[in-house]
């Protein structure tokens, strides 16, 4: 499904007189459809930078990210134009980021339901499925119509996950998804992710929790300390 080779990222900081900072260098790995690839490495070694490059939040400096897209066929995400990336993000790839970007004045259930609205699902059905995922993730019904900005770190993270998985993406990118969760919630998330894998979702994720890494990943890529 995804074949990465020679991927590198450097940051050019103008404020530091144009000095460049090394993100990571020559990452090469791949993942088959329906499989999960875990990325291992000490923190600060660029694990989330790799994911952000795949999702194109970061502009890759070198290398290629071949992805078998449903709408575009084989496409190099590093060089795809912005309109292709926008469409792929809408219909194929989801990214569970570490932090939830709070949307002011939108309730938890609407935040989770929104990705469905964009693809022609009715409002009621979208909210119903959102409620389902939220319950599965242990979010109490009372919080459905509250604003996420008042939630705890764990609850926000679960909203974040629910929002990314409600539409069973083709490729799911995950950056420390269970970082702020307690043992019990982590178990629930792992079960949910396994469920998704069973339905064919391909995954690439960075996990600090080795137990979760083993549970989910079919293969693991070791960041070599990134200089």
């Amino acid at each position, binding site marked *: 499904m995804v074949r990465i080779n020679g991927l590198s990222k450097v940051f050019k900081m103008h404020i530091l007189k144009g000095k460049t900072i090394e993100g990571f260098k020559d990452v090469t790995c791949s993942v088959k459809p329906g499989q999960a690839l875990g990325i291992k490495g000490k923190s600060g070694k660029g694990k989330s930078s790799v994911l952000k490059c795949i999702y194109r*939040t970061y502009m890759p400096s070198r290398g290629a990210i071949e992805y078998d897209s449903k709408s575009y066929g084989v496409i190099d995400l590093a060089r795809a134009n912005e309109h292709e990336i*926008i469409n792929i993000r809408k219909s194929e790839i989801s990214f569970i980021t570490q932090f939830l*970007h709070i949307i*002011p004045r*939108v309730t938890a259930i609407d935040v989770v339901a929104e990705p469905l609205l*964009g693809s022609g699902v009715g409002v009621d059905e979208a909210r119903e499925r959102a409620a389902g995922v939220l319950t599965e993730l242990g979010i109490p019904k009372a919080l459905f119509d509250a604003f996420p900005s008042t939630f705890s770190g764990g609850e926000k993270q679960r909203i974040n996950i629910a929002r990314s998985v409600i539409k069973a993406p083709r490729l799911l990118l995950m950056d420390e998804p269970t970082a702020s969760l307690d043992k019990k919630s982590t178990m629930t998330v792992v079960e949910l992710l396994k469920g998704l894998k069973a339905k064919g979702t391909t995954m690439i994720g960075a996990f600090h929790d080795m137990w979760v890494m083993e549970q989910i990943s079919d293969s693991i890529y070791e960041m070599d300390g990134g200089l």
Partner: protein
Amino acid sequence: MIKKPVLKARNITKIFGKGCPTCLDDDSDFEGNICPDCKSVVGCKNISFDLYPNEVLGIVGESGSGKSTLVRMLYLDIEPTKGEMFLEFDGDLGDDGFSGLPAQAIGANIFSAKSFVKRHIKNFFFGMVYQSAQLGLKLDVTAGGNIVERMLMANNRDIKKMRARASYLLGKTEIPVERMDEPPKNFSGGMQQRVQIAKAISNEPAILLLDEVTTGLDVSVQAKVLDLIRTLQNEIKVSMLVVSHDLGVIRLLTNRTIVMKNGRIIESGLTDQILEDPQEEYTQILVNSAL
């Protein structure tokens, strides 16, 4: 199913003042927005970009960067000194077979179209929401009347149907329907903006232009207006161009963003990339100076 862009802007330039070869020449470059030779002010210089169907493009930059001038030119409010704009329409036609794009406008540079073609485009193809309500609304005409006017332009002549549509749109923009027959001059700033939005979308435009829509509104009202725009993105097939100096608004609403300074495009890219991995020096400063 690669879609064609709905709007193509090519080398749009706006010079306030006499202008001279230096500031008009495409590849001449100079610092700031005052032309070294003829001292005229360069509002915009060589602005080119594409807007795709159903896409939300942000234009961000400090005040004086030329972003409002640009969007006013796109809406044909002011004449550009140079440059072209092409419009495409591939969506389904309006219920009365009305694409909003007259034949003469297909494939032609809209800036040099005849005035009634331009007016047609302004009334049907574009929806515009200005920062200040008096530019967008007739403040003495009733709120419903402001919306109905657009339908009248589409030769609608059934008052009950028009009022039903107007109250539906006002309801959608959370304006109490009983105030439909009141002039907007009695409304609060937030409500005036929402009447503008209702008016802008009344003819189901292909492109919605939003010029600093939430500037000057207090936070809670701003959130309401932004929330309304987000729901519109999902419900109606429309491309949007959002001009703002507020990075929060840009992050919330847009997929792609263009960064402007002194009338020029400094950088453009996916919104999250611009905000989290800015390439140009000015963008890095801009992004890091946000609260």
